[in-house]
C-alpha cells in the first residue's frame, strides 16, 4: 500500500470532496468530519512520501500504468516532498482552527464550503506532486476555481468585485502558462517535465524556448501576485471570509513559487535559467520593487488583514528575489522561506480570524486593549510578528539569514538593502499593532488599581491549533539546520554553484 502514497495523497481529498458535497445535501454536520478524516489521510501519505524520498532520493508513480512520456507521471523529489508536507499540514491545521467561524458565517452552505476546501487542497497537492506540465495546468485551474468560490463568498459585499478582478488576472496567468506549455510542446513534442528537460539542451539557441520560458514565468508571476501583477491580492484576501483567507493566503502564493522554482530547476535546467536567459538582474530588481512597495503600502493601511496582505506581497518578493540570485545560498533561502512563510502567514491570519470571530472586525480601532481581553491570541500574534520581523529563535530569521548571505555572495546589494528595509518596516508595522493592543482603550484613564475588563478569549478549538502553529514557528527555527542539510541541500541540483 505504501507505494501508492503519491496517488493517495491527491485522490483521498478529491473523493472526499464528492462525498462532502453529497453529505451537504443529506446531513450537514458530517461535512466537517469527512473533511478532517480526508485531510488527515492525505497528510499521513504526504509524510509517507517524504520518508520514502529521504530513503530512495526520488519516487515516481505512473498513472494508469503507462510509462512517462506517454502517460502522466508523478515525480516526487526532495523539493516537492517538503512542500507537500507543508501544504497538507497547513490545510489540516487551518481546517480544525476555523471550524467555529465557518459554522457561524456559512450556516446552511457548509457543504459547498467544505467541498471547495477539499478541492482547493486537492489542486494544491496535485500541483506540487505532478511531474506532467499539462496536468499542472489542469490542477492550477481547480485551485483557481475553488479559490474564486472560497474568496467570493466574503461577508461584506466588496468581496465579489475584488474576486472578479482576481478571476481576470488568474485566468490571464493560467492561459499564459498554458501558452508557454504549448510553445514547449511545439518545440519538444512532449509534456513530461523530465522528458522536456532532456530534449531542451539541444534547442537552447532557439527563440521559441526563451519565449516559452518568459511566458510561463509571466503566467506564474501573475498567479503569485509578483510585483507588476499584484493589484488583485490585497483586496481579494482582505474582503474574504476569515476561514477562506487563512487557507488561501499561506498556501497559494507559496505553491506558485514552488512552480516557478520547478520551472527554473527541473524543466529549464539551471544552465539555461541563469546563463542563457539573462534574467537574473532585472528579476531581482523587480523583487526589490515588490519588497519596498509591499512595505510602504502596508504602512498606509488602517486594517490588520489588509496590512498582512501587503506583507504577503513583500514576502513573495523575498522568495522570487532569493530564487533568482543564482547561487546556492539564495535558492536555499527561497525554498526555506516557502516553509517558513507558510507557517508565519498561517499563524498571523489565524490570529486575525480569531479577532474577527470575537470582535467582528479587525480594523486598528477594533484592536484596542486586546492584550488584556485576548491575551493568548495576541501572544501568538507576537510570536508570528517576531518571526516575520526575523528575530532569531523563530524561523523567519534563518530564511532571512540565507537570503541575505546569498545576496551578499551574488553581489546584489540592492536586495540586501531591500531585505533590511523590509525588516525595519515590519518592526514598525507589528509594534504599532501590538502597541494599540497593549494600551488600554483610550477611555479608561491610568488609575492605579482599576478593574481590568473580563478576559473573553476565542474558544479552545481555535486556540489550540494557533498554539501548535506558534510553537511550530520556533521549532522549525531551531531545526533549520536539519531541514537544510538533509532536505533542501539535496533539492537544489548541482548545476548551481
Amino acid at each position, binding site marked *: 500500500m505504501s507505494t501508492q502514497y503519491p496517488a493517495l495523497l491527491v485522490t483521498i481529498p478529491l473523493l472526499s470532496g464528492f462525498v462532502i458535497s453529497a453529505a451537504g445535501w443529506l446531513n450537514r454536520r458530517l461535512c466537517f468530519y469527512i473533511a478532517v478524516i480526508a485531510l488527515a489521510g492525505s497528510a499521513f501519505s504526504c509524510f509517507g512520501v517524504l520518508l520514502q524520498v529521504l530513503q530512495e532520493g526520488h519516487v515516481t508513480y505512473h498513472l494508469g500504468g503507462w510509462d512517462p512520456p506517454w502517460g502522466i507521471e508523478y515525480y516526487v523529489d526532495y523539493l516537492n516532498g517538503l512542500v507537500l508536507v507543508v501544504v497538507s499540514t497547513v490545510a489540516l491545521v487551518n481546517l480544525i482552527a476555523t471550524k467555529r467561524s465557518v459554522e457561524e458565517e456559512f450556516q446552511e452552505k457548509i457543504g459547498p464550503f467544505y467541498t471547495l476546501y477539499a478541492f482547493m487542497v486537492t489542486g494544491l497537492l496535485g500541483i506540487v506532486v505532478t511531474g506532467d506540465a*499539462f496536468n499542472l*495546468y*489542469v490542477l492550477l*485551474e481547480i485551485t483557481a*476555481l475553488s479559490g*474564486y*468560490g472560497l474568496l*467570493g463568498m466574503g461577508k461584506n*459585499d*466588496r468581496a*465579489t*468585485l475584488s*474576486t*472578479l478582478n482576481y*478571476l*481576470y488576472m488568474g*485566468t*490571464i496567468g*493560467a*492561459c499564459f502558462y*498554458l*501558452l508557454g506549455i*504549448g510553445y514547449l*510542446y*511545439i518545440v519538444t513534442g512532449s*509534456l513530461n517535465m523530465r522528458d522536456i528537460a532532456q530534449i531542451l539542451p539541444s534547442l537552447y539557441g532557439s527563440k521559441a524556448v526563451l519565449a516559452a520560458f518568459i511566458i510561463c514565468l509571466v503566467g506564474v508571476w501573475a498567479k503569485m501576485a509578483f510585483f507588476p501583477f499584484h493589484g488583485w491580492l490585497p483586496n481579494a484576501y482582505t474582503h474574504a471570509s476569515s476561514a477562506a483567507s487563512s487557507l488561501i493566503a499561506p498556501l497559494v502564493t507559496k505553491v506558485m513559487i514552488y512552480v516557478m522554482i520547478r520551472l527554473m530547476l527541473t524543466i529549464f535546467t539551471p544552465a539555461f535559467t541563469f546563463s542563457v536567459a539573462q534574467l537574473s538582474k532585472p528579476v531581482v530588481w523587480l523583487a526589490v520593487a515588490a519588497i519596498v512597495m509591499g512595505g510602504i503600502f502596508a504602512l498606509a493601511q488602517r486594517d490588520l488583514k489588509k496590512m498582512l496582505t501587503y506583507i504577503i506581497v513583500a514576502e513573495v518578493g523575498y522568495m522570487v528575489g532569493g530564487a533568482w540570485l543564482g547561487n546556492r545560498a539564495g535558492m536555499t533561502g527561497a525554498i526555506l522561506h516557502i516553509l517558513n512563510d507558510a507557517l508565519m502567514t498561517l499563524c498571523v491570519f489565524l490570529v486575525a480570524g480569531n479577532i474577527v470571530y470575537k470582535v467582528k472586525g479587525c480594523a486598528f480601532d477594533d484592536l484596542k486593549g486586546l492584550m488584556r481581553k485576548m491575551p493568548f491570541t495576541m501572544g501568538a500574534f507576537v510570536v508570528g510578528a517576531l518571526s516575520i520581523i526575523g528575530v532569531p529563535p523563530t524561523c523567519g530569521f534563518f530564511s532571512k539569514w540565507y537570503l541575505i548571505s546569498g545576496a551578499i555572495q551574488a553581489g546584489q546589494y540592492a536586495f540586501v538593502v531591500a531585505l533590511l528595509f523590509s525588516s525595519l518596516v515590519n518592526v514598525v508595522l507589528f509594534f504599532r499593532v501590538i502597541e494599540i493592543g497593549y494600551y488600554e482603550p483610550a477611555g479608561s484613564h491610568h488609575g492605579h488599581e482599576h478593574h481590568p475588563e473580563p478576559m473573553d478569549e476565542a474558544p479552545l478549538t481555535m486556540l489550540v491549533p494557533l498554539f501548535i502553529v506558534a510553537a511550530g514557528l520556533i521549532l522549525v527555527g531551531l531545526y533549520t539546520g536539519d531541514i537544510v542539510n538533509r532536505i533542501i541541500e539535496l533539492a537544489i541540483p548541482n548545476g548551481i554553484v
Partner: protein
Amino acid sequence: MEDIVQTVVAKYNYWIYITLMMMGLYAMIAKNNLIKKIVGMNIFQTAIILFYVSIGVKKGATIPIIKALHGHHEAINPAEYMNPLPHVLMLTAIVVGVATLGVALAFAIRVYNRYNTLEEDEILSQIRTKTEEI
C-alpha cells in the same frame, strides 16, 4: 524577400491566434463593462485553443480514428492520421473555459444584485462614496 513572404504564408495559423489573443487581452484590460471583459476573456481562451489545435494538423492526414480495414497486423502509418494529443488537451481547455465563464457570470450577477450596474467605474464610485460614509 521571397522567402520572408514564404515563411509568413507557411505560418499563417500563428498570426491568426496571436491577433485573436491580443483582441481578447485588450478587451479584458481596456473595456469598462464587466460582461465585455468576460467576453474578452473567452476570446483569449479560445485563441489558445485554436493555437493548440493548429499544431496537431498534418498535411494529407485524416482524423485520428484508425480505420477497421487495416486488419490486425499491418503497421499503422502515423503520417496518415492527425496528431490526437492537442485535441485531447484542448478538450480540457474548452471545459475550463466553460467553467470559468460560468463562474464569471455568477460573479457578474452577484455584482449586479448588489450595485445594480455593470460599469466598473460606477461600481468603484459607489464603493468610494460608501467608504466615506462609514
